[in-house]
């Protein structure tokens, strides 16, 4: 057998075994023997039964995944998921929800904004209230509002003395 014939036999060899002639050639030809070992490594490491099949229910599990994907996606690729009735019903249910829930959400949001606007308008501005309470209790602001700028330049001690004198 020639090297070419042996290598063709090796490549076509899928666990069925090589013939006696090929084996004799391999014993005498290191290059073809290396090729045979490489082919065997690939075959052994990638071995699987020709009868292997996925577990029962493969289609059902697939359809469930597609339905789940369609229910989370905003726009499924082909409009709706194929599959069993359940798989199809999911996108349809979403359409119905969209029709009812989305307008309701828009109206509620608009009402909430309107209510918030009315509240803000009727309530006194928080900033102004705080400022007014500060001014009422502050001596310097009080004197400024009364038209006397002197308190602005007086030291805190002078202001305390003046207060005590006023009290006497």
């Amino acid at each position: 057998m020639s090297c070419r014939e042996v290598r063709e036999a090796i490549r076509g060899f899928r666990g069925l075994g090589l013939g006696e002639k090929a084996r004799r050639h391999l014993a005498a030809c290191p290059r073809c023997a290396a090729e045979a070992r490489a082919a065997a490594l690939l075959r052994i490491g990638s071995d699987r039964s020709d009868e292997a099949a996925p577990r029962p229910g493969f289609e059902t599990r697939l359809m469930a995944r597609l339905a789940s994907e369609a229910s989370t996606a905003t726009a499924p690729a082909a409009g709706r998921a194929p599959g069993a009735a359940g798989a199809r019903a999911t996108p349809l249910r979403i359409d119905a929800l969209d029709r009812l829930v989305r307008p309701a959400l828009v109206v509620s949001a608009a009402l909430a904004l309107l209510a918030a606007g009315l509240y803000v308008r009727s309530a006194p501005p928080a900033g102004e209230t705080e400022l007014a309470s500060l001014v009422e209790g502050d001596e310097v602001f009080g004197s400024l509002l009364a038209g006397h700028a002197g308190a602005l330049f007086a030291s805190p001690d002078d202001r305390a003395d003046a207060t005590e004198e006023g009290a006497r």
Partner: protein
Amino acid sequence: MPGSELLEEVRDLGDATSDAALVARAAEGDAAAFTSLVERWKDRVFRLALRFVRRPEDAEEIAQEVFMKLYRAAATYRSGAPFEHWLLRIATNTCRDRLRHARSRPETVLSQTTANAQAWLDAALSGAALEIHEAEAAREVAADLLDGLPPKDRIVLVMMYLEGMSASEVAEATGSTTAAVKVRALRARRTLRRLASAVRQEGRR
């Protein structure tokens, strides 16, 4: 019913159940058409995936992913190309993505393998018959070594030498050219020979 009408009906039936017709109907949301496609091709995809992963659960996960991608891309299928090539392209891309996460270094694999397992693999590579547990251990080491191959190389090797596909068919299925596939196969076989030789050397130490 006249013979010509019957023939016409049979032809229509054949067209309606062709892969191309089923994909077109699936793209329009026809659940039954999509299910028919899955039933027809699931074993092929599952067995191909099982060449690259050890656990059947992982092969099934790959097969599920392939059909989900197929469903999403159904509208892009052009019936001029054979459906099997299109399906295999999706399948090989999915397997390649999976293999990218499973890379291992052959030296590490061999250094972490028991002397017995290496000796059994060495014997298996030379064509010796093994006990079941020996064959199982040898298979594990071989699979670990193949995990060290670049994913594209491994896909080409498996498709050409185990699935019996020609270089042009592999090129079609992987979106490459025939010349590129041949070059890759040559290079990958060289790597494979080196790995097989390393097993022998390590096993003799």
